[in-house]
């Protein structure tokens, strides 16, 4: 019992503090400032130096000292609360924004359940014989995993909406309202677009979804979500980007219209926490899309005992179990970071949408398309 609790704590620390938060916070620098500078033929931040550490005093270290300096600056800044703001909610709201962004990570599988016995590969599946499967690589193995993700991501808008309301400022309120409107518009097509994938895999358990994506169509094409549901992939990516309030869907922030939207009136660490929660949510989008559409921890042709080319019982290239685990976790991280990179790339490629365009895209394009996708998928699944 105690070891179970310790194991869960260890997994939480590993996933949140060693994966989600570092990547999320590093993205504030590498994604938003360094990557944009590369696209725009600039150098980006490189003047801060870690001169307290001998030997590093003269190196720009791709600007990472800037990101440390930012954190330090945020801690020492004055925490200003506007007159007439609801002090209680104003103080609670950053936590409300960060909580769902972190809690969502509970169901993301970084690898299949650990097998203590022998692994036999049958029909593109790892079957554990003479041993138990232990859930070491996801915090919780929920059968309703995807529903849990939708539920929490629905709650995440409360942070933005209440932040806007509690600030007692017009821009903040507009930002909060916009974020609620955007959430409602995109939550629908987001859920409907994955419904097709749910029909195909017949499960809501994210790990089981990933296991099924190891199937090879015709013995060579991995049955990844993007292969069987290409349209849903684009709709889901778009809807998720809108959900995380990133450009080109940054209506709730709207720097050019409403200062900083719902967090205009937040300063110091409160601002940093809200900002960080957005980045962590962005990383989560990468992880979720990788899980549902890009085969999660699956490496093509790699199964529990090595590489299989086609539906063969013995591996063509045998690998020890630990190497397989390392490869798969590496593949998952790579896919997550790739989607993350893509999101930042889109941000610096596309101009912002107008508010009415965002609504048009959500209700008039994404919703009918995802419905059509669902109906067609249902027919195809019923026939096959």
């Amino acid at each position, binding site marked *: 019992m105690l070891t179970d609790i310790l194991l869960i704590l260890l997994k939480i620390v590993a996933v949140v503090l060693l994966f989600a938060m570092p990547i999320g916070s590093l993205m504030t620098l590498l994604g938003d400032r360094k990557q944009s500078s590369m696209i725009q033929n600039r150098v980006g931040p490189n003047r801060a130096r870690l001169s307290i550490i001998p030997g590093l005093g003269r190196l720009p270290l791709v600007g990472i000292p800037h990101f440390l300096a930012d954190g330090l600056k945020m801690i020492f800044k004055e925490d200003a609360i506007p007159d007439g703001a609801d002090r209680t909610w104003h103080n609670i709201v950053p936590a409300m924004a960060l909580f769902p962004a972190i809690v969502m990570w509970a169901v993301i599988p970084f690898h299949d359940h650990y097998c203590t016995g022998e692994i036999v590969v049958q029909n593109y599946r790892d079957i554990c014989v003479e041993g138990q499967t232990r859930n070491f690589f996801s915090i919780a193995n929920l059968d309703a995993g995807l529903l849990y993700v939708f539920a929490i991501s629905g709650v995440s808008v409360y942070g933005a909406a209440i932040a806007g309301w509690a600030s007692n400022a017009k821009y903040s309120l507009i930002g909060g309202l916009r974020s609620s409107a955007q959430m409602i518009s995109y939550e629908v097509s987001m859920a409907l677009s994955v419904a097709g994938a749910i029909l195909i895999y017949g499960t809501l358990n994210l790990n089981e979804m990933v296991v099924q994506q190891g199937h090879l169509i015709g013995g060579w094409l991995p049955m990844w979500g993007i292969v069987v549901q290409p349209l849903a992939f684009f709709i889901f990516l778009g809807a998720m980007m809108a959900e995380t309030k990133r450009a080109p869907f940054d209506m709730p922030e709207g720097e050019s219209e409403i200062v900083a939207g719902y967090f205009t009136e937040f300063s110091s660490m409160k601002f940093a926490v809200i900002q960080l929660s957005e980045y962590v949510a962005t990383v989560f989008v990468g992880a979720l899309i990788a899980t549902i559409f890009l085969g999660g921890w699956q490496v093509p042709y790699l199964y529990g005992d090595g590489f299989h080319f086609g539906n063969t019982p013995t591996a063509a290239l045998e690998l020890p179990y630990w190497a397989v685990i390392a490869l798969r976790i590496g593949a998952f991280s790579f896919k997550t970071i790739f989607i993350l990179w893509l999101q930042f790339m889109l941000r*610096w490629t596309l101009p912002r949408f107008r508010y009415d365009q965002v609504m048009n895209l959500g209700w008039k394009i994404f919703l009918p398309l995802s419905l059509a996708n669902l109906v067609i998928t249902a027919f195809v699944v019923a026939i096959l």
Partner: protein
Amino acid sequence: MAVTVTKIPRPDRSLWVQSYVPEVMRGLSITSKQFFKNLFTKKDVVTIQYPEVKRDYPERYRGLHRLMYRDDGQVRCVACMCCSTACPANCIHIEAAEHDDTSIEKYPAVFVIDELRCIVCGMCVEACPCDAIRMDSGIHTHPFYERDTAFFDKPALLELGGPSVAHQGGDMKGVQGHH
């Protein structure tokens, strides 16, 4: 006056373009091409890392003033007041004095330039009849912590100076007679 109407045809967007996804891909290909190019080669980055790397100034760049000197090291200026008259910012202050040498009429006993007031227009250099003041030192006017330090006096200006090849007084004979 007749009203002329120019009809601008609406862009003909096919369904392929309207579906947005291929156009996004096209945009992405441009930005990511630039991204990888600059990630690996920094080829298109034009930024100059200023304090460490300095840009080459053009030959006629106007930097800090300097006063030129004669072959014997005396100040070349004859205190004619042309520069201080020409100066639109009134930043040159000259006090003329008699020189012991009879071949030199006047010399500046005090020559002060307020570098904070100077607008770096170069009029003083244009006005100078005897190539005594120049702005070709190639040195930025650096920031000053105190206003007093921005007043550059004769020794300070001469320190940057050098000998001039121009003939003093504009007459060969006069120059030779001086020596």
